[in-house]
């Protein structure tokens, strides 16, 4: 069943005189992190199955600059942003979809001031749209009766008020969505944002991801669903720390859907 992934690049399409409908912004984690690459591939499988006309920038993509900006390095952020915008504008990109809420936030909210104005969607929003348009159908057989708790990524939830799309998708899988005691607007951070991913935490009694994992475990889930590659890493580490990795999976919404469709 593993079929070859079809991943056209903007350069190839443009050489052939074609313009895809969407640009899939893969992001650094999605390109390089082993765990996150599985999310990227799951999303591409869905795009292939739904015959979506898309392309990636491939080697022309570069970090959006989010971690630099949150560290306080406005200069490095803008250097990244301006060169990315140059590439995107040269390809006349109109619509961007990304599997990373940090890229999503930066592209959507911070690039416009620097001349990068696109319609930007998070992959959960895009997947919901695909279902609404009937481009993919979901029968939940595989997840029926499974307890899934959803962790809100800060940069998708509070930062951009996207709470519904990922939940709707989980419900379409016929799974039982169970909420943690802190969810939606009050969702607790996984501990990775604001460039924390790249450093050791400050002195304290506990790591943030452990606290969040404990909240997730309280719901007695079969699966912890995430919608961000960084949250995914943090929650996976948390589950390992609690020695629950044999019974509880941490999966991205795209993986759940690819899974449900046996892709």
């Amino acid at each position, binding site marked *: 069943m*593993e079929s070859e*992934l079809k*991943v056209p*690049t903007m350069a190839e399409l443009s050489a052939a005189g074609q313009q895809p409908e969407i640009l899939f912004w*893969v992001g*650094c984690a*999605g*390109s*390089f*992190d082993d765990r996150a*690459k599985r999310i*990227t591939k799951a999303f*591409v499988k869905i795009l292939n199955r739904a015959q979506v006309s898309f392309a*990636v920038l491939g*080697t022309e993509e*570069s*970090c959006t*600059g989010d*971690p*630099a*900006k*949150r*560290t*306080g*390095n*406005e*200069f*490095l952020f*803008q*250097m*990244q942003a*301006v*060169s990315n915008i*140059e590439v995107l504008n040269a390809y006349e990109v109109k619509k961007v979809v990304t599997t990373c809420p940090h890229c999503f*936030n930066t592209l959507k*909210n*911070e690039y416009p001031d*620097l001349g990068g104005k696109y319609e930007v969607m998070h992959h959960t929003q895009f997947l919901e749209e695909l279902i609404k348009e009937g481009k993919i159908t979901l029968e939940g057989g595989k997840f029926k009766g499974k307890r899934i708790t959803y962790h809100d990524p*800060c940069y998708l939830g*509070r*930062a*951009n008020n996207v709470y519904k799309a990922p939940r709707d998708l989980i419900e379409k899988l016929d799974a039982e969505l169970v909420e943690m005691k802190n969810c939606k607007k*009050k969702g*607790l*951070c996984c501990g*990775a*944002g*604001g*460039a*924390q*991913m*790249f*450093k050791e*935490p*400050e*002195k*304290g*009694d*506990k790591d*943030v991801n452990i606290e969040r994992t404990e909240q997730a475990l309280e719901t007695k889930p079969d699966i912890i669903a995430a919608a961000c590659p960084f949250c995914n890493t943090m929650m996976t580490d948390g589950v390992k720390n609690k020695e629950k990795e044999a019974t509880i999976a941490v999966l991205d919404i795209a993986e759940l859907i690819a899974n449900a469709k046996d892709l």
Partner: protein
Amino acid sequence: MQYLPNILFVAALVAGIGFFVRNVKKLARNIKLGKKVDVTDNTSIRWKNMFKIALGQTKMVVRPIPGLLHVIVYLGFIIINIEVLEIIIDGILGTHRIFSPLGAVYDFLIASFEILALLVIIAVIVFWIRRNIIRLGRFIKPEMTGWPKTDANWILYIELILMVLFLTMNGADYQLQQMNVAHYTKAGAFPISQFFTPFFEGMSMPSLILIERSAWWLHILGILFFLNYLYYSKHLHILLAFPNTYFGKLDPKGKLNNLESVTQEVRLMMDPEADPYANTSGVEDGQEVPKFGASDVMDLTRVQLLNAYTCTECGRCTNECPANQTGKKLSPRKIMMDTRDRLEEVGKNLDANKGTFKNDEKQLLDDYITREELWACTSCNACVEACPVSIDPLSIIMDMRQYLVMEQSEAPSELNNMMGNIENNGAPWPFSQLDRLNWAKEN
């Protein structure tokens, strides 16, 4: 001598309001030490936010118990203050209950003030119990010792005393009305203070008049005192919550501001045709080069400084903060309190030096807010979401990080490595940009 009370009253009123005006001027001067920001946009959305969040208390009731208690105190206080208008007119003219010709309406008003006063007393007592007996977590964090703790209790005591004085004044008045004492017109309905009757039983008319007059005077003097207490207290929020919610952030919470001075520099660097000898700093010659980020209160914006004065020290932000919850030093409430304390210190410095700031070898960074606090933030926006008065502690944290990184090159070393990677190979990890698409070929 007949006019002595009127004269004393006018003198107290002028002094009370005069001091208050002086404090407001100082407040405005201090806030103007911050950088100007354009907040003239989206006026209709801003008014709507103010109506909803401040007037309508929408974010207070997210926590139902303190929310409801607060709505009582808030409404009670505002409505009862209509009575203050009558007191002031009576005080100036030497009349008694000048609005009493309103008849039934007057009875209704006084009756509702009394009921509200009782509710306020109950709410204030519950607030006190939550702070001092139950000792809710958010009220006993390290930053809540000393003045902040005393202040919080004083506010409750003062409100309690004011309400009790109001009811005592009415209760004695009611007795005097029953005794048909001249000057004490029969007016008003006293659903609460009528129950004070047993307490006044058998008192002579002069003692009753003494009680009524003392309560009346103490009540109005108390209000004038309270008005002037605000400037030194978190209770300043009763005024500043309104402008603060008006000026609150309108962009999506995830958006951090763009630094225009950097944009100009970046554009020139990226433009192959740019004149290499041109002035790239984005400022005219002779002007000071703008400082990146914030190390002291003067580097913050006026909205951020208004935020600091508005903070109610409620700790809802700190309560939701993932760093604080896991035992790190960072507390977004402390960020706001430190900003206000430093701003006050700068203000006093200005007062002492005829309006020019004398370098005191201190700043907000390190002397108030430590780097350990700043670097513990995950930029999760939980504090911003939690604040019932639209304060943005995260923006101050980010501005201070910007100063540390851009002016001092003092990021934690792991973050320097991460930024080095972005600079060299376009990713926070040391992978080559040329390998970015390798995932598509792996299985």
